[in-house]
């Protein structure tokens, strides 16, 4: 179980590399430019859902980007929730 914090746009190398390593029992938190993967109907969104991990978007960053409601399957979380997630997952990888 790995917590992936994904702070990179869907077309970036970091985003591609992250997708390769996400396992079904992992969690992915989108932040920064990563939030654009929560746009419904995009390939990046479909690819993340196919990875079957728990998917989250940082609310403040999504709002900043103009994403009022993320795609189905993505949970909106606040910084407190992110901190709680980091406590729940013993291992983390940051993608940027």
């Amino acid at each position, binding site marked *: 179980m790995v917590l992936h914090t994904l702070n990179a746009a869907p077309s970036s190398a*970091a985003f591609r590399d992250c997708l*390769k*390593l996400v*396992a079904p029992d992992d969690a992915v938190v989108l932040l920064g430019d990563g939030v654009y993967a929560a746009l419904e109907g995009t390939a990046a969104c479909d690819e993340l859902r196919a990875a079957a991990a728990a998917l989250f978007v940082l609310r403040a960053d999504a709002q900043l980007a103009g994403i009022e409601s993320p795609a189905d399957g993505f949970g909106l979380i606040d910084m407190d929730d992110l901190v709680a997630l980091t406590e729940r997952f013993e*291992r983390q*990888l*940051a993608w940027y």
Partner: protein
Amino acid sequence: MGEAAKKPVLVVMRHSPYGSSLAKAAVDVALAAAAFEQAVDLLFIGEGVLQLLPGQESHKLGKKNIGRQLASLPLYDIELVYVDAEAALRYQLDIASSPVNAQLLGPQEMRQLMVGYDHLLGL
């Protein structure tokens, strides 16, 4: 705690050697940990596989040669590194010419590999 005994640290090397200072930082971290007898393994993914290209000439830029530093890994008891097979193919990297013994892994194998470590460090 895991089912089986886990190894301490997997460093995920994912940046090209000279495009930023991140690859050098990753090599420094891996060597520092190994120098202090910490068991460390390395996984090269994406553009990180380019660190394994032979024949790097960094001296004209006044930079340390990442390829040659990686060649010293066996002296730190890191005998084998793991390499993203897709990226190796994309960049036509021949791992037989890599400065250190390398094993190619597919995505599923990489995900399985990661399960065996207490800590992951991505640089």
